[in-house]
């Protein structure tokens, strides 16, 4: 592999994996609190559409990111109300949220189809970028992705708030006995998850493609949900997972361009096969890794 190819693969993996990382750590926060959100795809789409719309209207991509984060939070809080306040089934509600996100994002994005935006600027100041190489300079969301994962790790594992949140996800009854309010913590968790999911979608539309198209996340939300399991519900492992999947996708495209003697159909399967293989290989030792009360609605103590 010559250096040009290597740089290309690294740059492409990073661009591809960033939105996955934000989505995965957001989902980890929600699942650590005991709530599985299958509608992550919908949240990402709403983030992508809102971010694009805001950028097209104001000309400022950073405002677009903020708008996407807000929109993601707002919609995820609707999901939170249904699941926490009304005790709706998490899986069914999550899937409904996905379809809702698909439709709502299409509605938001419709007037902006075909609009051209400048997107998030690539930062080359202060020696940012990998090894100062101009091809390896990225937008601010890429640089903040790993710090965000570390921040979420710190929040979950080094603060009292995180401890309470994890307690709710493991044993809500014990949490109540300790004086915590499970529903309040779960709302906060889902709010944060929505914020991160919205940012994940915004990265796709404002940095990777600089366009909006209906359904443009193309299943990445579900990949993120699988990556949560791969990461053992730990945001630091999520970094590896997102890079792995992002890397696999960019590698197969680079290998195609380099002329690999493999059918293009099989090449396109590679990222998914890899994820499947890793999940199977690591799955043996993963029993008990999930939060004990994941997926169950807590209705209250006697």
């Amino acid at each position, binding site marked *: 592999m010559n250096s040009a190819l290597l740089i290309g693969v690294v740059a492409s993996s990073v661009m591809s994996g960033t939105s996955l990382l934000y989505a995965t750590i957001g989902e980890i926060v929600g699942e650590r609190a005991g709530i599985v959100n299958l509608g992550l795809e919908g949240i990402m789409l709403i983030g992508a559409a809102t971010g694009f719309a805001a950028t097209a209207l104001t000309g400022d991509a950073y405002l677009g990111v903020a708008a996407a984060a807000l929109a993601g939070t707002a919609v995820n809080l609707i999901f939170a109300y249904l699941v926490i306040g009304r005790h709706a089934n998490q899986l069914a509600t999550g899937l409904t949220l996905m379809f809702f996100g698909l439709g709502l994002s*299409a509605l938001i994005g419709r007037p902006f189809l075909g609009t051209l935006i400048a997107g998030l600027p690539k930062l080359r100041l202060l020696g940012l970028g990998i090894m100062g190489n101009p091809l390896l300079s990225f937008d601010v969301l890429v640089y903040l992705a790993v710090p965000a994962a570390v921040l979420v790790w710190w929040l979950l594992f080094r603060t009292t708030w995180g401890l309470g949140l994890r307690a709710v996800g493991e044993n809500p009854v014990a949490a109540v006995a300790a004086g915590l309010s499970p529903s309040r913590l779960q709302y906060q968790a889902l709010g944060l998850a929505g914020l991160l999911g919205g940012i994940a979608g915004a990265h796709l539309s404002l940095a990777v493609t600089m366009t909006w198209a209906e359904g443009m996340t193309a299943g990445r939300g579900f990949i993120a949900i699988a990556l949560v399991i791969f990461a053992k519900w730990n945001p630091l492992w999520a970094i590896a997972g997102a890079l792995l999947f992002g890397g696999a996708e960019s590698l197969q495209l680079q290998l195609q361009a380099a002329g690999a003697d493999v059918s*293009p159909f099989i090449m396109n399967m590679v990222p998914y096969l890899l994820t499947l293989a890793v999940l199977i290989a690591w799955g043996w030792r993963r029993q008990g890794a999930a939060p004990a009360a994941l997926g169950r609605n807590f209705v209250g103590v006697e």
Partner: protein
Amino acid sequence: MARKLFFLGLILGALTAFFAAAPLSAQQKPPLVVGAIFVGSVNDYGYNRSMKDGLDEMAHAIPGLKLLEAENVPETAESERIMEGMIQQGAKLIFATSFGHQQFAFNLAKTHPDVYFEHAGGWMMSHNFGNFFGATQSAWYPMGVAAGKMTKSNTLGFVVGVPIGYAIGNVNAFEMGARSVNPKAVTRVVVTGGWSDKAKEAAATNALIDQGADVVTMHVDSPATIIQTAESRGVYSIGFQSITAAQLAPKGWITGLGFTWGPFMTGIAKSVIAGTFKPAFVREGLGQMMAIAPFGAAVPPDVRTLVMASADQVEKGFNPFTGPVTDNTGAVRIPAGQSWGGDKMGNFDWYVDGVIGKAK
């Protein structure tokens, strides 16, 4: 009393006359109601935009024609429901504009023998079902000529959505055109797996540019993302599907291929109105259903002349797929003396010599 009755009678008479006359002055019944479904958004600078432009031209040419449209219709049974809805609203002619809509439109053609269907890009036919598309393959030859002359690295990049025979044929004609003016030109191909996955298209374009391509082109639904990515990396681009894509790449645009569906669609609509619809397998090329986009500022005059001369040859019947043609493993695929005509364009499962990639 008599006066009241008289005036009542007068008013009733006036009302009756008014209602009797009303249908005559009511809205004219449209000569034809046409339904059209698009797989994506018409604002894609690409395939769907070209279809929309053609339909608008048809509606403009036939005064009073009513056009029902539905965008983002997936290539699933959902499309059948949407087309059925249009038929319920009186549509007598349906344009199913995406390849994957074929079976569903065909199903409806069986249950609605009095409604006419035109499908784009397939092969099915029946008494009320016709098929049309641009003869894209030979039209790609002049695009290859343009790319072959403009490239400095002798590496061209081609992003393919789904490697169906027609798309592979496009790549082949492109490479042959490039080789005809630049024997060292090679074409690298990356397949994204779908007609419209923007993030993958951006990554695929970057991969091709990382491998040295300085001219990038594509066969996907919308050229927008690929052209914008190429422009941001400072390489040339050649567009496809709609000639409006030139505005996306002020510096790097060379030329492009676009579809001009309008005259064909107008002809079909008129034949339905006149009751003379004849199902046909229509493939028209440059000068009819296809046109070459305006050249970009970066293209020198001698290249322009060369490209237009090549296009002229294609319009006059030049077929690049005339033997002997070797594939990229060295095997002879079209022997000397034979040539592959329009009916074989869907049969490509091999790339010509000079294309770096695997077809299947």
